[in-house]
């Protein structure tokens, strides 16, 4: 049984993540009207928002500490929030500001926060091998930290994922692979590209447990992840956790989803894990006033982060030439450092 305080925290994180994506969507589209121009407005480039994926983030990260490593894919914000990434500096990064997590160099698909051991990458499945490496480091140093690699169901056909499953399994490394199954890889439905009923079955061929959470439910994810993370922490090797989530927005902002049946979009709106958790909290005696308060706290936090980020300076163009190396022999011999 999950404690009510844990559930409350998970709820707060979920509404924070949802609110965050809604507000980023508004900020992103500002300046891209009337005609959508991907490079215009306060947030440039592609933007992949995770509304509908929150349960997979909070249910797993509830079991993690700062020392545990998480790698996320191109759709990273909800996982970053659940992992405790600094929201102000993450937001400043997304707005391309100097005080962002990565000084404006990385952007929304390339967020790095070493304080909580979080990173993400925009190339499909390529966060898996580094997660295995973090687990390898923990294993070699006899530390009990674990690593979690997030990926979408479309990413499971990529070599980097399959090779990572095998390496983690054969070395019995403390890794949990979390597949966020939202049924779609951009415009490609799962059954067009992957010929298994559930991604969890992939684990069979690697001699590791594959666990499917087939409904978008934070408590069910929490319980499945407790076993998987516990198994890893206790030195019993990796687990593949396959979680059903829902894509409530387009693949990226500006995606008109012409390929997607209306019923499917409507279903994603209807099956809302946040509402489900709110019902569970009510059953556990948390009243509407308190839920409302948690939502308002989340809204304030998001608003503060966005306001702070937008007040930050843009990077100095000359900074573009820095950071290729931490230890640049050319710069050192120039005597500037």
């Amino acid at each position, binding site marked *: 049984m999950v404690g009510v305080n844990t559930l409350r925290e998970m709820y707060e994180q979920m509404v924070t993540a949802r609110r965050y994506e809604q507000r980023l969507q508004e900020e992103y589209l500002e300046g891209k009207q009337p*005609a*959508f*121009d*991907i*490079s215009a407005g306060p947030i*440039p*480039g*592609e933007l992949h928002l995770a509304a509908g994926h929150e349960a997979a983030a909070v249910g797993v990260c509830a079991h993690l500490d700062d020392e545990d490593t998480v790698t996320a894919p191109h759709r990273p914000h909800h996982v970053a929030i659940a992992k405790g990434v600094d929201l102000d500096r993450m937001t400043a990064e997304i707005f*391309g*500001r100097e005080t*962002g997590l*990565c000084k*404006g*160099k*990385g*952007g*929304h*698909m*390339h967020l790095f926060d070493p304080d909580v051991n979080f990173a993400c*990458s*925009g*190339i*499909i*499945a*390529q966060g898996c091998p580094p997660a295995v490496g973090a687990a390898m480091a923990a294993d070699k140093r006899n530390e009990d930290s674990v690593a979690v690699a997030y990926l979408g169901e*479309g*990413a499971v*056909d*990529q*070599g*980097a994922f399959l090779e990572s499953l095998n390496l983690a399994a054969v070395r019995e490394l403390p890794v949990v692979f979390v597949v966020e199954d939202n049924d779609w*890889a*951009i*415009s*490609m439905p799962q059954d*067009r*590209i*992957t010929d298994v009923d559930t991604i969890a079955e992939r684990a069979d061929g690697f001699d590791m447990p594959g666990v499917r959470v087939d409904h978008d439910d934070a408590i069910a994810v929490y319980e499945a992840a407790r076993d998987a993370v516990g198994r890893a922490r206790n030195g019993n090797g990796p687990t593949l956790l396959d979680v059903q989530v829902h894509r409530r927005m387009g693949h990226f902002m*500006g995606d008109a989803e*012409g*390929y997607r049946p209306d019923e499917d979009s409507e279903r994603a709106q209807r099956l809302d894990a946040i509402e489900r958790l709110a019902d569970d909290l009510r059953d556990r005696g948390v009243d509407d006033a308190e839920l409302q308060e948690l939502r308002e706290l989340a809204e304030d936090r998001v608003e503060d982060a966005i306001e702070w980020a937008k007040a930050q300076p*843009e*990077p*100095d*163009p*000359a*900074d*573009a*030439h820095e950071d*290729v190396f931490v230890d640049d022999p050319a710069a050192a011999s120039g005597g500037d450092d």
Partner: protein
Amino acid sequence: MSKPASDPGTGGVDRELTMSRAMVDAIASEMRADDEVFYMGEDVQDYGGIFDSTEGLLEEFDRDRVMDVPISETAYVGAAVGAAQAGMRPIAEIMFADFVGVCLDQVYNQMAKNTYMSGSAVNVPMVLTTAVGGEYNDAAQHSQTLYGLFSHLPGMQVVVPSTAYDAKGLMHAAVRSDDPVVYMFHKRLMGIGWMPAPEGPKTPVPEDDYTVPIGEADVKREGGDVTVATLGLHVHRALDAADQLADDGVDVEVIDLRSLVPFDTETVLDSVEKTGRLVVVDEDYQSFGVTGEVVARVAERSPDALEAVERVAIPDVPIPYSRPLETEVNPQVEDIVAAVESVE
């Protein structure tokens, strides 16, 4: 081909196309003519290609000829190699050139080398299409051109159209080639609704099939004072720079390299022998790449003609995300103007 590539604007053609429409026009025509031609990539069916590279094909061809594939570039690019060696004419798309990393072996050890390693006992008549380039703040993993990487590794022909006319002619030539051709289309030139393109790439495009020969550069603007050799998006930036410089009395010749492999050294040499001054502009990393190669070829063949030279390229840093940072590293019109002035 009845008229010179450098003169697409006349000859009674009144149909103007965007680059993506011209590219698809050629693919459809080749698929109509030959059942052995097929297209595979991610999101090429219902989405029509993220950058419109297959938009509309599904209206005419079935899902076996316009194939969505798993996000398994090694498998499907390698499958194109195998199908090509079996005699088919596959076109495989890597959504962004940046993603070549996950399937590089199939590209450079298999596709590119099988002809040579077999002593031409086999050949690989496939096309590898891929979107390139930045200037919309998509950061380090989604903005590269990698022109130099593909061109450096021997065994693949590499073409980079900068206009609709060239896009169609080069696609016809690529599909008909008996060798592997990497066809790199710049996202900013395709004429996609959500990514405004400059006006230049939209040109008249004849209905009939024609080829633009692989290995021929094209003088996009004639001039006597300074040669600017470039490709892709930067052809249009160089033309803008030339317009500005013309107001100051500097007469710039703009060469669209168009093919990197094989490389048309003669067209560049002829121009430099006329102007004596060379500026090479490239949206790829500066060191060990296209700009150095162009300068080296001219220096080897015509050292006396070369009075002054400048390179304008990405200064050997990954492409940063933030707008002021990306603008700093990606050559802008002003950077080209400044380089021309510095050699002038």
